[in-house]
C-alpha cells in the first residue's frame, strides 16, 4: 500500500522548478512551464516613476470609487525623483501618489528612504516563496530572497492593485551553476556582468533563472541581490536563489538550459557603451579616461559596495583625481545610516565626493547629477544605454564599486587589484 501511495504521489507531482512551485501555490493548481495562470500577488510595488500612470489606469479600470483590493499588499516608493528636480512635474507626481495612498490606505516609502526593491528587502517584507510584482524592471532583485519577483508596467500594476491578481505565463527555467571559489578582488558585479555577456541581452528572455551550486552558498545577501538584479539585462523574468527555509527545486525538474560559470578564474569586468552585455575584461578597458564616477544604485549602492569602494580609495591615498567628479548615492536611508556610523560616508565626503540623497540618483537621468556633454562616466549601475543618464553625448561604462573607486583615483579605468598604497 505504501509503495502504491508513493507511486501515486510521484505521478501526481512531476518534479517542479522553483518558479513552477511558487506560481502553482499562487494560482491554486499544479502549473508547469508554458501554462498561463492567474496568480494571487503577495506584494504590488510601484514607484514615483510608474505609480502616477498606474493610478490613471486604476481609476479607468475600476471606475469612480474603486478601491485597492488589499492595501496591505501594496506599497509605493518615491525613489526616482529624489529629491524632486527642477521641473515641477516630479513634485506633482509625488503629491498624486501620496494622495492616492492616503485615500486607499496604501503605504508610501518617502523621498530619501531608498530604492523600492531594496527597502522591501531591508525591512523583511520580502519572504521566500512570495510572488512580487513591481512596476520597475529591477524588481527581479528580490529573487535573491527566494521570491518570484518580476517587473511589469503601470497598467499591470494597476490591475494587480484592483484585483489582487495578475496573469502570468509560467516561465521555463535556466539553471545557473556557480562553480569554484571567488578570487580576491572579483565582485558580484563582475560575475553578474560575465553572465549577462554569456547570455546576451535576450538570452534569458521569458525565462526564470535559478542560481544553484556549491559556490552559491558563499554569496552574501548583498551579492545575491546584485546577481538577481542584473539578470533582467539578459531578459530574465525572475532570478531566484534557493535559501534556507524557502522553496527548492525538485530533483529532476525540467530546465531548458544549464549554464556553468567557473568563477575561480574570473577577472574584473567592464561593460562598454551602450549596452550591459558589451562586457570585456577590465584589462581591455584600462586607461580609458573618465570624468564622472558614480557609486550608487540597486547594483552598487549597498553598504558592502561603498565599503569596498572606500577601501580601494584609501589604499590608493584617498585623493580623487583632478577633473573627476565622484558621486555617491546610498541605496537607502538605512544603508546611509550604517555608512555614517562606520565612517564610510564621512570619509568619502572628506575626499571630495558629492553625496546625494538615497534613491535611484543619477542612474536614469531622473535626479542627481547629470553628466555634461562629452563626459565619460564609469558607474556601478546596471544600464549604460546611450542617454540613460540624461545626456546622449556622455558615454557610460559599468563596473564594480572597487573598479569605480580605482578609476576615481587615477582618472581613468583601472584594475582595482593593482591599486597599491601610495607614497
Amino acid at each position: 500500500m505504501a509503495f502504491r501511495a508513493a507511486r501515486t504521489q510521484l505521478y501526481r507531482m512531476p518534479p517542479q522548478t522553483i518558479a513552477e512551485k511558487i506560481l502553482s501555490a499562487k494560482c491554486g493548481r499544479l502549473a508547469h512551464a508554458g501554462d498561463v495562470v492567474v496568480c494571487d500577488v503577495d506584494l504590488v510595488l510601484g514607484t514615483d516613476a510608474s505609480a502616477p500612470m498606474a493610478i490613471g489606469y486604476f481609476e479607468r479600470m475600476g471606475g469612480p470609487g474603486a478601491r485597492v483590493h488589499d492595501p496591505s499588499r501594496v506599497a509605493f516608493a518615491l525613489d526616482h525623483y529624489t529629491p524632486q528636480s527642477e521641473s515641477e512635474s516630479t513634485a506633482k507626481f509625488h503629491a498624486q501618489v501620496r494622495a492616492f495612498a492616503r485615500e486607499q490606505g496604501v503605504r508610501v516609502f518617502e523621498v530619501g528612504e531608498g530604492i523600492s526593491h531594496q527597502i522591501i528587502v531591508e525591512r523583511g517584507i520580502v519572504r521566500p516563496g512570495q510572488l512580487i510584482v513591481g512596476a520597475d524592471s529591477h524588481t527581479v532583485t528580490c529573487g535573491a530572497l527566494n521570491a518570484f519577483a518580476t517587473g511589469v508596467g503601470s497598467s499591470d500594476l494597476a490591475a494587480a492593485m484592483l484585483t489582487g491578481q495578475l496573469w502570468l505565463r509560467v516561465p521555463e527555467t535556466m539553471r545557473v551553476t556557480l562553480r569554484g571559489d571567488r578570487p580576491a578582488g572579483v565582485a558580484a558585479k563582475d560575475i553578474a556582468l560575465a553572465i549577462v555577456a554569456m547570455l546576451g541581452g535576450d538570452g534569458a528572455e521569458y525565462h526564470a533563472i535559478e542560481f544553484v551550486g556549491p559556490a552559491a552558498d558563499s554569496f552574501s545577501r548583498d551579492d545575491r541581490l546584485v546577481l538577481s538584479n542584473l539578470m533582467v539585462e539578459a531578459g530574465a523574468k525572475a532570478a531566484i536563489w534557493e535559501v534556507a527555509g524557502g522553496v527548492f527545486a525538485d530533483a529532476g525538474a525540467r530546465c531548458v538550459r544549464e549554464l556553468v560559470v567557473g568563477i575561480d578564474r574570473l577577472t574584473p569586468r567592464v561593460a562598454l557603451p551602450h549596452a550591459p552585455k558589451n562586457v570585456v575584461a577590465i584589462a581591455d578597458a584600462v586607461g580609458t579616461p573618465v570624468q564622472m564616477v558614480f557609486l550608487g544604485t540597486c547594483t552598487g549602492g549597498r553598504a558592502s559596495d561603498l565599503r569596498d569602494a572606500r577601501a580601494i580609495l584609501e589604499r590608493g591615498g584617498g585623493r580623487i583625481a583632478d577633473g573627476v567628479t565622484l558621486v555617491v548615492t546610498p541605496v537607502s536611508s538605512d544603508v546611509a545610516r550604517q555608512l555614517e556610523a562606520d565612517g564610510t560616508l564621512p570619509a568619502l565626503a572628506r575626499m571630495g565626493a558629492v553625496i546625494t540623497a538615497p534613491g535611484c540618483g543619477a542612474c536614469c537621468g531622473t535626479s542627481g547629477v547629470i553628466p555634461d556633454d562629452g563626459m565619460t562616466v564609469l558607474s556601478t549601475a546596471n544600464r549604460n544605454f546611450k542617454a540613460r543618464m540624461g545626456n546622449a553625448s556622455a558615454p557610460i561604462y559599468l563596473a564594480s564599486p572597487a573598479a569605480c573607486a580605482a578609476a576615481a583615483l587615477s582618472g581613468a579605468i583601472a584594475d582595482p587589484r593593482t591599486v597599491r598604497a601610495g607614497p
Partner: protein
Amino acid sequence: MTEIIGRARRLGDDINTDYIISSARKKTTLDEQILKQYLLESLDPAFASSVRAGDVLVAGKNLGCGSAMEVAATVILAAGIRAVLATSFARSFYRNAINNGLLPIECDTTEILEGDALMITAGPDGTSITNERTGRCEIRPPLGGIAGAILDAGGLVAYLRREGRFVPLGRT
C-alpha cells in the same frame, strides 16, 4: 478585424525603452502628445518629426528591453503607430503593448527595409503581414489566451471593465 496599411520604419536589435522615450523626458510629463515629439530621439533626433500616422515600427530582436516603463508603448501609439513588428520582444514591453492596444507582431523582420509598404491584417484566425516590395506574405497565429482576450478587448482597461478580473483560460 484590424487592417493597417503603412510604411515600415526600420530599427535594429535591442532597442530599449529608454531609446523609445527617455526616462529623463518622462519626469517632465506623462502627456503622450508632448512626449511623442521625443520618440526615439537618442537614436535619431529627427525621427519623431518624420513619423506619419499609419507608420509601422519594424525592429530586430529584443524590442523594448530595459525599463518596464509603459510610456514606451503609449508614446508610440500617440505618434499614430498602431503596430510594432520584431523578431522578438522583451516581455514587459510586449505586455505593455497589448495592455494599451498596440499590436505587437513577432515575426521574421530581416527582409523588411525602411520605407517598405506593409499591409497588416489581424483577426481571429491570425495576423498576416504582406510586404508590397517583396510580395512576401507571412501569417502568424492569433495571440490566444488571456493576452489575446486583452488585445481583442482593445486593452487592459476595457478588458477589466468588462470582466472585472482576469479570467483563467486553462492551458494554452
